[in-house]
């Protein structure tokens, strides 16, 4: 066990944005909630997954609804408490710890704030190792763990407990209840045992985020190039360097879909990278070859600061370094690729691990 203070939260927020691969929403409100919770309740205990007893009850927490509502109607902090109490009563068991469902965006931060308020530890684990847009895109789903019983609660004290036949129904019912509750609610979801969490979760994700954030911060303080350190920390590969020359967005079925073109600089001069995104960056290719594709991670970084650039932040003229990071092996199974591989997002390419694509590219040259 170790304790997370304010500096750790700031660093984790930067790392979360990088692993958010361009999506996941602005973690700002979540970060402030965590900072205030630390001011009020002290540092947040962080457990490694090995410190969780096999039979302990662990529950993920976060928000669902419209991000626009969240930034205006900030949570009370009490919602999660009520949600957890309701779940404990229903399951007749105490919650031992909470954890983030995804590593990117606002939901990477909220469990930290909620843990401090609830007096619970956070487990250093998540269900994606990155960010994805849909609730079933978690490694728990791959192992057949149910999202329900889940609880959604608003700041007024309204609580809804859902026990549904599958995760799709959970999503459908929870969404309409969320609108009635004012468009943004906090949830307690995916209750499971410590054993389940250890087997199905992605380990040490917060530590990785913190290390990424810290290396970007220190690189800036010491005038160092942060990219090399980021690649080492993430086992990642530099895919491309260049300048954004075209961004084409359209909002389709609730997702920000689009493409961006990046013109090569330095050793990539003469090549153009095409980046496809759908909330997250999902595919990177040049004219003649694929460089990286979901579920592997594609992060676009500011070439000077190393700070991650979101899909909304992609603008003509931005100088970028595009890196590819191997996803967790759980995503590389047939079911993993079926759930969030290129075909699911409508891209007509075969999934090939980024390290193989990089190797192939090197021999081609």
């Amino acid at each position, binding site marked *: 066990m170790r304790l997370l203070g304010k500096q750790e939260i700031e660093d984790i927020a930067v790392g979360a944005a990088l692993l958010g691969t361009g999506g996941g929403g602005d973690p*700002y*409100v979540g970060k*402030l*909630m965590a*900072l*205030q*919770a630390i*001011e009020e309740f002290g540092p947040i205990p962080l457990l490694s997954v090995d410190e969780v007893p096999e039979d302990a009850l662990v529950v993920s927490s976060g928000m669902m*609804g*419209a*991000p*626009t*509502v969240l*930034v*205006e*109607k*900030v*949570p*009370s*902090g*009490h919602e999660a408490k009520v949600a957890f109490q309701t779940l404990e009563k229903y399951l007749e068991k105490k919650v031992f710890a909470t954890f983030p469902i995804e590593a990117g965006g606002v939901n990477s931060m909220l469990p930290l*704030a909620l843990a401090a*308020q609830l007096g619970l530890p956070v487990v250093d684990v998540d269900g994606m190792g990155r960010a994805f847009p849909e609730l079933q895109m978690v490694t728990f789903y791959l192992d057949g763990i149910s999202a329900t019983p889940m609880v959604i609660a608003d*700041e*007024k*004290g309204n609580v809804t407990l859902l026990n549904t036949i599958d995760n799709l129904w959970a999503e459908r019912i929870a*969404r309409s209840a*969320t*609108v009635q509750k*004012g*468009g943004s609610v906090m949830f307690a979801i995916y209750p499971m045992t410590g054993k389940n969490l250890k087997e199905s979760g992605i380990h040490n994700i917060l530590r990785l985020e913190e290390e990424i954030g810290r290396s970007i911060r220190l690189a800036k303080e010491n005038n160092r190039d942060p990219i090399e350190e980021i690649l080492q920390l993430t086992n990642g590969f530099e895919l491309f360097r260049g*300048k954004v*020359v*075209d961004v084409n967005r359209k*909002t389709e079925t*609730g997702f920000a879909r689009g493409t961006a073109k990046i013109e090569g600089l330095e050793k990539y001069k003469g090549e153009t990278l095409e980046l496809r995104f759908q909330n997250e960056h999902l595919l990177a290719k040049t004219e003649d070859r694929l460089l990286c594709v979901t579920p592997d991670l594609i992060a676009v970084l500011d070439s000077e600061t190393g700070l991650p650039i979101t899909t*909304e*932040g992609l603008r*003509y*003229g*931005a100088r970028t370094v595009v890196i590819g990071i191997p996803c967790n092996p759980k995503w590389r199974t047939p079911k993993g690729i079926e759930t969030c591989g290129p075909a699911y997002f409508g891209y007509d390419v075969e999934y090939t691990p980024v390290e193989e694509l990089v190797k192939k590219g090197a021999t081609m040259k």
Partner: protein
Amino acid sequence: MSYRIGIDVGGTHTDAVLLDEKYQVISETKTPTTADVSTGIYKAMREVIGKSGVPREKIRYAMLGTTHCTNAIVERKRLNKVAVIRIGAPATLAVKPLVGVPDDLRSHLEKYVYIVRGGHEFDGREIAPLDVEHLYRIANEIKGKVDSVAITSVFSPVSKDHELKAAEIIREVLGSGVAISLSHEIGSIGLLERENATILNAAVVNVAKTAAEGFINALKAEGINAKVFFGQNDGTLMNVEYAIKYPILTISCGPTNSIRGASYLAQLSNALVVDVGGTTTDIGVLIHSFPRESSLAVEIGGVRTNFRMPDLVSIGLGGGTIIRIHQDGSFTIGPDSVGYKLPEKGMVFGGDTLTATDVVVALGKAKIGDPQKVAHLDKELLNRIYHQMVEMVEEAIDKMKTSADPVPVILVGGGSVLLPDKLKGASKVIRPDHFGVANAIGAAIAQVSGQVERVFALDELGREKTLELAKKMAIDEAIKAGANPETIEIVDMEDVPLAYLPGNAARVRVKAAGVLSAS
């Protein structure tokens, strides 16, 4: 014939112009900006009037773009005693007011902070009824202890009822002497950012009042009884009463003024504007005669707000930028500058510091000071330095463009002599007359505007009718602000659908602007 004065305070210089009815420049002047800001303004004002020779009673308007409020916030000085009231409990308790604000500023502002039950949902329902009793208790507690109150209610851009009711109670108990800042008149959706802006506004009310009264009195002392306006960050004006109520809107009007002034001088409504000052070069984008606004949250004195500021890229290159040449022939350009001390430190003026100005003079690209004083410098090296200076600007220009197509570039600012007549990425380079005081001209010719920004359910009226309604609201606001109704145009309109909300909810923003009403 009637006349108007425009004054703009920059980091290095305070510029002033005097224009006639047809916006012809009668006189212009530049004086060093002073630490107290006001002294420099008065000096520039007297100089520009003296030079013009126009009869003083014919000067009808005076427009001022000033940094009084920015400085007060950045320096944390002369701030009001503020009470902060947020309406929104039981929501919002997880992030209290001022969390995330730098500690030194927070300690000034956090003495009286309250969160009251009330506020609205995105669709206008109440989160909870407004806790009137609590507001009376707060009012009695802060009475005599604060002189300014910031009130922010959840979703007040959708429903302002609770903010208005709360203001009524504060006014009733504290009397008319207290300043009240309401968030729905200051910012848009995004509670914490809007609240921060409202608190900052409350904190600089006195500073703005003193600045405005000082300026009016200085004009009177010159025998001028002009109507005074303040420039705001969107390139439009507000009258004194409004500026004293909403001084935060004066923040960052300088870059806007220079972009608007450049637009007027070059007679272009779409272009890039490169403003080279003493210390920095600011590059902004002119779209339909207004600056393109930044989509990112803007920080003022370390505080995150949701103000829309001109989208600028700023690089450390100006007339006073210090050039350092090392033993091995390598060199650095800035980022520091001798600033307003250029006339004593620069080598062409007999000083001992090599500046960007000295480089262009030595290369024969500008005639300033005494070229003999830099004639001994290594031309080949200077050429390399010069090329890098130009490249810095070209790279920044490229960053600001939205496509690879070349666009017209307007060069303004006293330091624009540094730059050549051809720039990469520019279809043409324009140096208008009076380029040195484009910012003061921008202040003088500014229009008055009205803006509406709120969440509408498009299903109720349909998109077309909703936009019409929003347009009418913006036009009414512009008329209220003093625009001549016949000249009002819609200058900006945006509707953004909100994800995951029913009723086809959309955030609609409309801005209308027109020429100042003559009456």
